[in-house]
């Protein structure tokens, strides 16, 4: 179960290069996938290819040969339990699929199963994390619309990442997940739980013994991930904290507006500026509420995904170490054993090859992961700053708010176009 197979249909599409310009782009996508499957030549060439892939994904979605969407969350009620079921739609041109379109219903547990199978099949590939099983603090109700929508988006993202992965997308389990009407019968097969227990036991045993020959590049990777994990967790916490502080801020601000407008009702000359300020305050409340929603539903999930992803990478590294340790143990035993080396030699050979494949898979996927992380976090942070800019633009008291600006006696330097004729002021409306 090496999972290193090159996609079968690749050679066929290569021949159509001259026919369609779009296919050229399409084949570039595949050629990079081929390289990702085997040993990469140099990190920088890989980097360039994957950057191209990112841009393509944005522009030519339809050029993907496997397109997956998760939508239509519905409540499903049985005698025992109630749960949410999502619709998973697949459109594909791949030959290993009998049809070009599929529609199935899946629940969260099904996604968990899929991910578990993928990790088992490809222990040293980095599989995208799933949204957490239990709700994040702050929300109690797992049938809350916002929670369901956030989860749906995360599940959609998960499937898209998996189906865009050059190796994972060809997994048998993914195929079954996307196509089988009844997933339950498939779920009962396969190793699953017991193999995971065995793995954990071995990992603990090996960690007690200590790994001797870990290559330096993996040590560097390990150190990086430890640090990255800590930093991204901090960013997650800070972002959540900001949302909380803004919530407290807007709760207080909501009491300010009425203070001004109630006073305005009692005044004549002061009514206009009082109402003007009340309007500013109310607008600010609306914008802040929207911003809090953005933070909770967009930015925090995006950052949190990488908190979980970092944990995934750590787990992958532990699995690699286990595979390495398996080999090391047997290798050492071989060195000590003088008689009957044949069987042991064979075993050691197998383990060595297994280690080689595991290492190269991880190395390849590591580059892919880094680029993905950079792209994802960059776009998440850029969007967040744009949201902040919008927030200030929209809560800024507009010059059209009914305020007696003219009493300042001069144009405020940042409002060059403001007219000071009273006639103009009467025409304005609160934006």
């Amino acid at each position, binding site marked *: 179960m090496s999972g290193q197979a090159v996609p079968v249909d690749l050679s066929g599409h290569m021949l159509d290069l001259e026919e369609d310009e779009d296919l050229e782009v399409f084949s570039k996508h595949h050629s990079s996938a081929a390289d990702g499957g085997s040993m990469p030549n140099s990190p920088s060439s890989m980097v360039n290819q994957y950057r191209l892939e990112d841009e393509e994904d944005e522009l030519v979605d339809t050029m993907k040969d496997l397109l997956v969407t998760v939508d239509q969350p519905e409540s499903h009620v049985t005698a025992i339990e109630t749960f949410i079921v999502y619709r998973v739609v697949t459109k594909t041109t791949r030959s290993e699929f009998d049809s070009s379109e599929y529609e199935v219903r899946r629940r969260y547990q099904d996604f968990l199963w899929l991910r578990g199978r993928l990790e088992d099949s490809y222990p040293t590939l980095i599989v995208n994390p799933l949204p957490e099983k239990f709700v994040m603090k702050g929300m109690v109700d797992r049938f809350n619309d916002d929670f369901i929508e956030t989860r749906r988006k995360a599940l959609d993202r998960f499937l898209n990442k998996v189906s865009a992965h050059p190796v994972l997308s060809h997994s048998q389990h993914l195929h079954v997940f996307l196509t089988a009407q009844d997933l339950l019968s498939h779920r009962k097969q396969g190793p699953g739980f017991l193999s995971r227990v065995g793995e954990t036991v071995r990992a603990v045993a090996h960690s007690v013994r200590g790994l001797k020959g870990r290559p330096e590049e993996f040590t560097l990777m390990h150190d*990086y991930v430890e*640090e*990255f994990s800590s*930093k*991204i967790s*901090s*960013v997650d916490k*800070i972002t959540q*904290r*900001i949302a909380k*502080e*803004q919530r*407290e*801020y807007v709760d*207080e*601000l909501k*009491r*300010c507006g009425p*203070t*001004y407008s*109630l*006073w305005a009702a*009692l005044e004549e*000359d*002061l009514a206009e*500026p*009082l109402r*003007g*300020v009340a309007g*500013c305050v109310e607008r*600010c409340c609306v914008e802040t509420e929207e911003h809090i929603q953005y933070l909770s539903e967009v930015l925090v999930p995006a950052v949190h995904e990488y908190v979980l992803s970092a944990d995934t990478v750590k787990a992958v590294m532990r699995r690699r170490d286990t595979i390495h340790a398996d080999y090391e143990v047997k290798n050492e035993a071989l060195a000590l054993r003088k008689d009957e080396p044949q069987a042991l030699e064979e075993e050691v050979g197998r383990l060595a090859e297994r280690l080689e494949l595991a290492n190269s898979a991880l190395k390849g996927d590591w580059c892919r992961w880094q680029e993905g992380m*950079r792209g994802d*976090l*960059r776009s998440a*942070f*850029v969007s967040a*700053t*744009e949201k*902040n*800019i919008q*927030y*200030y*633009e929209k*809560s*800024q*008291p507009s010059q059209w*708010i009914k*305020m*007696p*600006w003219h*009493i*300042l006696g001069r144009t*405020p330097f*940042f*409002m060059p176009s403001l007219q000071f004729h009273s006639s103009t002021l009467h025409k304005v409306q609160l934006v």
Partner: protein
Amino acid sequence: RNRAPRDPAAALRMRAGSSHSSAGGWRRMRARSVWPLMAIQAGSGLLGRMEICIAEAEKRSGKNAMSMQETFTVYLIETRLTDAAADGRSPAPNFLWRRYSEFELLRSYLTVTYPYIVVPPLPEKRAEFVWHKLSADNMDPDFVERRRVGLENFLLRVALHPVLSDDRILHRFLTEEHGWKEVVCDTGFQAKADSRLRALNASFRVRNPEKCFLEMKHYSDQLQSNTAQLLRARARVADRLYGVYKVHGNYGRVFSEWSAIEKEMGDGLQSAGHHMDAYAASIDDILEEEEHYADQIKEYLFYSEALRAVCRKHELTQFELEMSSQDLVCKKQQREELATGIVRTFSLKGMTHKLFGHEAPEQKEARLRLLEEMIEEGEETVRVKTAEWREHVDKACEEMRRFKEQTDRDLREALVNYAVMQISMCKKGIQVWSNTKECFLKM
């Protein structure tokens, strides 16, 4: 009293690397005057002839009345006549030091001497309505600075007032450091002060106060309640906004640490982190500006009390006039009864006379004469009280009209400036986040 409760996670807020933190919460600087445009209204009054400012504040130690050591603050009042001197040179400025209690004495004198004037209030004795970063300690340098500004504002207000600015005691307060206290006390104003109890009694029992005073009393209650609510709400909001900005400072620290392990992302993260630090620090200036707005509103919170005092004085003069008029009517009725023998009103004396016989004619004459004297006195009292009442009503009505115009003008200015401040804050925010966006794009 008005502080937000400190939560344990305030540490997260505080670790923002604010470069402006000091004991007082923001950097020490000279605060702006409460109403920057006020001195321009000088005109021909006192302020037109003289520049007044409070230049400095200093700590002093000395022995108080009970021979105990105490520390207090003194304020340097600087005045300079703006009339050109005969030889064309501008006259030298005059300096003297005053402490807060002397200002209080001056104000007491003015309120007693001019009960129909809405006397400008002094800055608060103890810091109230502050958000939690601002110290409430009287010795805190930022509090002292704000008080200096407030006291200067008081002097300018008084100097601009058409009536108060002519007062001799005020002039001597501004020009004679020593002996002023004795001069003030010699005026005997303290004896003229109305007792609180008398005033309260009058407020309850007065029958027909003038309509304009009733309206003004109602207005002063509203003004007080509205400004107080506003100040409370604002202080709480300021506290929360501080938290929001300061937490962003943590991004600065984390991005900086994170950038150390990244290759391509490193520069972008590092510079974004710097902008986050700047964002977190920017709240200090923003809130200091807002404190300035709060000071303007606070002045009118205290002004409402001064307005109320004028209404109370009216209630007192009205009540006393009613009482003395009533007393006079009573006496005249008694005289009539005594003279004619006709009893119009029931009285025990009348009854006993009817039952137990008349008194001697000489006694009746004596009583009649006494009554006549009392009626004469009573008429004089009523004349005096009426004059007092009349003077107060006329002058106070004019003063309250002037005050209402001033209030509307000043509060309009304060509110417009507040909106301008908000615009400025938003523009700063847009700037910082645009810069941050540029950094992330380079990641």
